[in-house]
């Protein structure tokens, strides 16, 4: 992970070379990918490389990135959360119904939605560590349940498949300013979500590489038996990771509810796989124990660029999914290759 600093010189590590040391880092593949994708679109489209264009593709990248980071941490910890996408919808709908339908104060609705999200995350995590079943199957269950609940409750309350009029609630404006407004930089309006994204990337990287908890995340994903035997609270670590993912879903759900002022009952369905893809493009191993938060953010950045870049080039947006699939395969191959190189280079 971190490169050696101030280590006494050892003749056996001299010949490692900068390239090989760089290649040992999980996010290097995603960095190269991001550079290539940027160059590809920037050369062909002047709008893509303009200030407004940059703001435009950073916008979807930011909300995706905010989710991809906790999903990456969870994957490093050896688990998946398939309910992460639909949970964004659950949070948005909760806020939408409480504010738009019942006229609740926006802050109150946000707090209730957060409590709900954390409870769902705890539920996922607790079931996984108690039953020792694969998280894939447990969260597939919560995914389907939430999908049904989102639709059922929304229909029952509003008689439609959406919750709207979120902006009519008290204290909507200050909440909007924090979670969904734009910030002007050099005459270009950037979404505030981009700042959240950058801050969370930095925070997650720090937690992962520089705290005890980060060490525990790597260990429970890398070898949970070993972690437990040296006193790492493995179950607690995993539950906290599931709750962190849920907190991410709350943040993104809040952002989209406040920004769109109405939210569809099917929001977030299918997004869970995109988060995982972004994390994998960012160098997370599917088997756990390896990956980075910066990588996941770079994965999200690639998504944002491709999604908007295709529009700028005037292509049919149907090609987006094809491109994603190809990116994923490429990323998995690169990860495998990089990992092998990393291990060889250290021998």
């Amino acid at each position, binding site marked *: *992970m*971190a*490169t*050696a*600093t*101030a*280590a006494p010189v*050892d003749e*056996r*590590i001299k010949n490692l070379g900068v390239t090989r040391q760089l290649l040992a880092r999980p996010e290097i593949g995603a960095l190269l990918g991001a550079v290539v994708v940027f160059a590809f679109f920037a050369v062909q489209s002047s709008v893509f490389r303009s200030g407004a264009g940059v703001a435009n593709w950073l916008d979807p990248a930011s909300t995706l990135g905010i989710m991809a980071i906790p999903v990456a941490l969870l994957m490093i910890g050896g688990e998946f959360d398939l309910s992460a996408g639909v949970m964004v919808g659950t949070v948005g709908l909760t806020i939408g119904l409480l504010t738009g339908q019942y006229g609740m104060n926006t802050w109150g609705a946000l707090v209730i939605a957060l409590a709900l999200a954390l409870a769902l995350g705890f539920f996922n995590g607790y079931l996984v560590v108690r039953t020792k079943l694969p998280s894939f199957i447990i969260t597939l269950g919560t995914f389907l349940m939430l999908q049904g609940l989102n639709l059922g409750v929304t229909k029952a309350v509003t008689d439609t498949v959406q919750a709207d009029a979120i902006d009519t609630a008290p204290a909507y404006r200050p909440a909007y300013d924090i979670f969904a407004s734009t910030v002007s930089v050099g005459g270009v309006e950037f979404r505030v979500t981009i700042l959240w994204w950058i801050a969370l990337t930095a925070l997650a990287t*720090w937690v992962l590489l*520089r*705290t*005890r908890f*980060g*060490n525990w995340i*790597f*260990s429970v994903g*890398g*070898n949970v*038996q*070993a*972690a437990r*035997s*040296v*006193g*790492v609270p493995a179950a607690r670590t995993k539950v906290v990771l599931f709750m962190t993912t849920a907190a991410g879903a709350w943040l993104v759900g809040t952002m989209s509810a406040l920004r769109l002022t109405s939210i569809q009952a099917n929001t977030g369905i299918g997004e869970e796989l995109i988060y995982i893809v972004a994390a994998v493009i960012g160098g997370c191993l599917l088997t756990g*124990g*390896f990956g980075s938060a910066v990588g996941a953010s770079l994965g999200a950045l690639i998504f944002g660029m491709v999604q908007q870049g295709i529009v700028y080039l005037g292509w049919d947006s149907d090609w987006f999914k094809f491109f994603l699939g190809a990116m994923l395969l490429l990323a998995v191959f690169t990860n495998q290759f990089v990992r092998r190189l*990393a*291990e060889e280079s*250290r*021998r």
Partner: protein
Amino acid sequence: MSETAQADPVPAAAPEAAPLLEVRDIGKYFGSVIALQGVSTQVAPGQVCCVLGDNGAGKSTLIKILSGVHQQDTGEYLIDGEPIRLANPRAALDRGIATVYQDLAMVPLMPIWRNFFLGSEPTKGRGPLRRLDVAKARDITRRELAGMGIDIRDPDQPVGTLSGGERQSVAIARAVHFGARVLILDEPTSALGVKQAGVVLRYIAQARDRGLAVVFITHNPHHAYPVGDRFVLLKRGRSLGDFAKSEVGLPELTRLMAGGAELEELSHELEREPQA
């Protein structure tokens, strides 16, 4: 948690020192199966006690009792002369009894220094700014391993890239650093080549010279004899004897291990008929 007492490098203790760990007539039953019966031995600081036996001899049961995984059904288990019952492995650790299992408690993809301090990471700063003291962790890892005579290339190297012998050595160094007084090693040399086994035996001797009481489980008398001070031979859950080094020689140990007569019979069986 952040700072753990380092084991004092005690000069090699006198062999006749009071036993640190002692078992008397210890036994364990699993239902109607007698896994272990009537085993006695002791180990003093700066001594190595070798537990020898073939597969199924009861070696694992014995170390599981010593390390708190199982509780004895009969007999006495004494630490510092005080009879105890260990409720769980944590209780053993709290008394300074550290066990290094065959399937090492290591995370292959993590760097050596992260593995070394896993679960007991040194930190600095307070409250939300409490963070790993990476420089210190790296430095201590390097120093502790060097102190054991283990020369690692780079503490950031993933443990997965180390050889089997090196991994054993890191696990031993970790136990020593975190204040173990008794070190239980479960077949540390069994999966290793001749040279690597030699390396591990050297670390066992190092730990002994630092004043630790070492319990070394093996089925190889050639590994046990050079480092051992006492030898306990187990066969089918029973003790064949508890010998001081002066009481037994390597040929005798090998013969007892192999079951004497059985081996002679086997060698007879395997011998070629003289060519006509």
